[in-house]
């Protein structure tokens, strides 16, 4: 295992926030703004109607939305974002069947220096094509991705798509472990997390987070399985995969970690069915002080939770 | 126990049967699954139908003549019908079907 570098130099994602429906509006439930107080203040004043701003658009169009240019767009907090140095955002709707549970929004900045990727893959004619993605400085990798498509079962997106399960891939750039490995390696990408984003309607979306060592999206990733077909009738989840820069492998085939609803951060997500964002809270798993946990609702139940820590 | 090697299991189709002639009469070898074989008398106690020609389902065989159904574990007729067929010890080893020699020997027949 790589020895952890404990003080993050620069992280790929700077702001993460959760918007939840309240009546006809989306209101801010939680957010991790780091030191960007000004943007936090602007956000706390905000709310979005359906089809209003970025979260409202993800709700109305029922799909993940990538926005790489705020100026002149439907983005509502452009001035505050500009002041905070934020340049791009991705909104991920969390649906349970036809019901919107929340919209998770991540914002990034400084795209000339930071490397990583947040990609949205969409099903088109039986193949997964890149719908849109934010790549920071990984320009060549962006180009490769735009010209790649995945059939069922192939690569991280194709694997997630056909198995309906989040997948965590290791060592993306170490030469052979990833279909776009060559370019990923040059871009310094190490770990990839892929997850299904179920939305109303037939079309399937896959979100991938590709993390680089220098400007990581996270240093710890977890995948929890909460399907009744796996855990039975109890409202539990078990850790089926995970990797951590501090603790190493988190999976244990024989004795997987198990949480029950409302037990710890993952348990809270299990209980509420809504994404969780924590920031500046030392004492999370392995001593990290920020985390994001995103539930996936499939087949009428909360099927999985993916979590990432920094 | 001593066992008689009757040959590879693949000589019997899955859910099919083959006949073995013995001193105690004809015995059906019934392959009920990929690696599962039963041995039982071939003759239906009702009207003598050849059970090895019946349809095999689960661990049962249905007589081709009048649809009597027998459980191959016990040899008992199922449902309303009364009757029983003899069953014989059989086992699989390395994909070969072995039949208990004692149970089909001339002495048993006597």
């Amino acid at each position, binding site marked *: 295992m790589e020895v952890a570098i404990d003080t993050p130099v620069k992280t790929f994602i700077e702001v993460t926030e959760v918007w939840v429906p309240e009546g006809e509006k989306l209101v801010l439930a939680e957010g991790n703004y780091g030191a960007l107080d000004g943007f936090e203040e602007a956000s706390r004043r905000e709310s979005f109607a359906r089809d209003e701003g970025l979260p409202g658009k993800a709700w109305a169009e029922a799909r993940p939305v990538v926005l790489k240019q705020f100026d002149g767009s439907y983005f509502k907090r452009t001035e505050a974002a500009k002041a905070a140095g934020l340049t791009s955002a991705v909104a991920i709707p969390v649906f349970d*069947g036809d019901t919107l549970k929340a919209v998770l929004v991540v914002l990034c900045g400084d795209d000339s220096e930071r490397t990583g990727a947040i990609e949205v893959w969409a099903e088109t004619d039986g193949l997964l094509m890149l719908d849109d993605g934010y790549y920071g400085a990984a320009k060549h990798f962006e180009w490769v991705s735009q010209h790649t498509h995945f*059939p069922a*079962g*192939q*690569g991280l997106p*194709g*694997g997630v798509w*056909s*198995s309906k*399960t989040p*997948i*965590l*891939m*290791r*060592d*993306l750039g170490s030469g*052979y472990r*990833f*279909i776009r490995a060559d370019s990923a390696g040059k871009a310094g990408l190490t770990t990839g997390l892929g997850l299904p984003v179920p939305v109303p309607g037939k079309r399937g979306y896959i979100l991938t987070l590709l993390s680089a060592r220098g400007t990581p999206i996270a240093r710890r990733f977890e995948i929890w399985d909460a399907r009744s*077909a*796996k855990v*039975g*009738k109890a409202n539990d989840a078990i850790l089926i995969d995970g*990797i951590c820069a501090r603790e190493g*492998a988190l*999976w244990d*085939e024989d004795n997987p970690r198990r949480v029950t609803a409302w037990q710890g951060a993952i348990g809270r997500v299990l209980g509420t069915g809504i994404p969780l964002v924590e920031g500046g809270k030392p004492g999370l798993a392995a001593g990290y002080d920020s985390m994001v946990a995103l539930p996936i609702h499939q*087949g*009428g139940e909360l099927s999985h939770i993916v979590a990432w820590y920094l | 126990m001593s066992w008689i090697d*009757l*040959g590879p299991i693949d000589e019997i*189709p*899955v*859910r*099919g049967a*083959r006949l*073995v*002639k*013995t*001193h105690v009469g*004809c015995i059906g*070898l019934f392959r009920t699954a*990929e*690696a*599962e074989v039963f041995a039982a008398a071939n003759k239906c106690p009702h*009207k*003598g139908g*050849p059970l090895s*020609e019946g*349809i095999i*389902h*689960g*661990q*049962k065989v*249905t007589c*081709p003549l009048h649809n009597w159904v027998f459980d191959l574990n*016990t040899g008992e007729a199922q449902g309303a019908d009364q009757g029983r067929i003899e069953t014989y010890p059989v*086992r*699989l080893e390395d994909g070969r079907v072995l039949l208990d020699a004692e149970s089909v020997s*001339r002495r048993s027949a006597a």
Partner: protein
Amino acid sequence: MQKLVVIGAGMASGRLLEHLTETDPGAYEVTLFNAEPRGNYNRIMLSPVLSGEKSYEEIVTHDDDWYAARNVTCRFGEKVTAVDRARKVVIGENGEVPYDKLVFGTGSSAFIIPCPGHDLPGVVAFRDLEDTAAMTEASGTPGARAVVIGGGLLGLEAAAALRLRGMDVTVLHLSGHLMERQLDEAAGYLLQKDLEKRGITVMTRASTKEIRGNGKVESVLLEDGTVLPADIVVMAVGIRPQVQLAKDAGLDMGRAIKVDARMRTSDPDVFAVGECVEFEGNLFGLVAPLYDQAKVLARTLLAEEDAFKVKQLSTKLKVTGCDLFSAGDFAEGDGREDIVFRDPARGIYKRLVIENDRLIGAVMYGDTADSNWFFGLIRDGEDIADMRESLIFGPGFQGGAAADPLSAVAALPPEAEICGCNGVCKGRITQAIEGGATDLGAVRATTKASASCGTCTGLVEQLLAVTLGDGYATPAAQPMCGCTDLTHEDVRRLIKSQELKSQPAVWQELGWTTPNGCHVCRPAVNFYLLADWPLDYQDDPQSRFVNERNHANIQKDGTYSVMPRMFGGMTDASELRAIADAADKYGAVVKVTGGQRIDLLGVKKEDLPGIWEDLNNAGMVSGHAYSKGLRTVKTCVGSDWCRFGTQDSTGLGIKLEKRLWGSWTPHKVKLAVSGCPRNCAEATCKDIGIVCVDSGYQIGVGGAAGMDVKEVERLTEVATEEEAIDMTVAFVQLYRENAKYLDRPYKWIAKVGLDWVREQVVDPATRAGLIERFDISQTVYQKDPWAEHVAERRARYAPLADLTLEAAE
């Protein structure tokens, strides 16, 4: 301190060293040899490393520090060339090491099919990190293709991993379904479907003949002539113990190194553990017993008592998103009973095998939540008599839950999903019932529950009963058999609409309650599948009644009758001579039948291929006198000879029979063509009867002359012989596609109405479609089964063995 030498750093010997050094770190000075240039890693996790879902670092169990901390002298990358038991030394490539105690942990190697080309570069096994690296390397080329030989645990994990890496993957499996040792057909079917969803091609009953290539692998040739291009070939057909070294050292061997319950070999100072041992005739390939052995051996080496016992095993497949579980014994036992649960909408299949009130086996697909609980019941041999009725629902359901299905439905929460297809929950159905939908049709109309696949019909009816109480009487739709609540009509409809193309698919997707049907449904489902999917489905002889399986009619004394075809009732002297010769040769009784043919009665089963061959040689084919299919076309002599004949009735009869023979139908079909209304061929009581008149041909259908006697009804009248043939073919195909199995045409027509039948057959476009589909089916089924059985299945007609011929003991 005693010297311990361990040969092989695998999972079993690794666990041994853990136990040994934990319990008594000072007991032994350990030297560990390993041919691989590395220490112990978790081999069973190689497939996620291959797929990229784990890194090699994560699966290392013992790193250099671990060995150093325990003073284990590591000789990695060094092969042991011999063991000299007389001098008690192990001879390595780089020198000798003396021992007081020696442990063989040499494991196993992949079994490589010795077909031509098996040694070409690019043929890999899947046993160690080197194999894994070779495969990942091969997958690096865009568009590279892999052929995996072996659809067992290891082969399928390799296939899924290589697919995830971006390869085109084909799995070849010898047996009829995947993982046949661990799974039954239904679970194998679901697994295959799951893998195919990932873009993996699965070929069952595929036998490899040759691996071809010039200097490296290029393609794989199958026995049936199929050629599959390949950049790598993964051999995953099995393992065999790696025991040459032990054999050379003169230890007692069976199929592997023989050990006692303390893991001791025939030499009291030499022990063996893991996949290289044989204990009480058993070999071991899964990890659980290896760990047990390691624990026993550690205690043995520390002079403590312990004994290894063979236990039940369970299997899981490491393919992300494939949830399967298999445990226990399906192969032997008396008085066993199956409990089967299927949820087609969610792709769930569970089967429990019970014997003497104990659970002895379990297979689960799609829902493995309770697998540990079931495995515990199997392992501990717990008495399950009290919970038998609800056992399949798992531990959450135990503790006094009543067995009455109505109370189970009543206990469901309102949000429980009843209809998976349309996502209808119990609450909505109850509401609809309370709102006035008081029968199944009304519930279907208002909620869509049970309107799609129909498998929840029973549940909806139970809800009606629960909600309405005595006000509801369950309608008596006749189910096909005890295996399902669906009617024949439902099953036919669903086979078409859900595109079900195999029997396991029908059993699973339509929720059969038995593992593989019964004598009532199997022949029917077999017919429906071959009629609807002639090109996709393969006829299953084991789902046919004896006559159709043996292509002859069984008689009450167990002999058979044999009847060659005589097209239109015409024969000649040489055919008759051959028939006479055959009758003499096989001692047959000769009977002239009402269908204008000759029947040879009293032929023994083992003589069938012989008599068929003789008749084939005289140019005759099977008359299908035993089939639910076209029997004969009876004719009169017609205008060629008869002074009243209006058309060439014999000629038309021959043409019809030549077009229709070999086709399977829901029940037998008899035809006749009469040359004039005097009707000498008795056409008006046949399933299809054509009466020639001056102006053309009157086609009647739905006659009968059996237990029911019925005159045909006029389907239509046509002017030309060609049209008469077209109408007849179209009618037969319509009957094939729509009738219930074992309904003769007159019964079927009574159900659907002659008007509907006529509309279909008379409409030119519909007729053309019917004829086209019939002809496609005939490309598969119009073949002489006698010739085929003589050529391919001759041996099956003889007894497997004749023990009466053997000398008395």
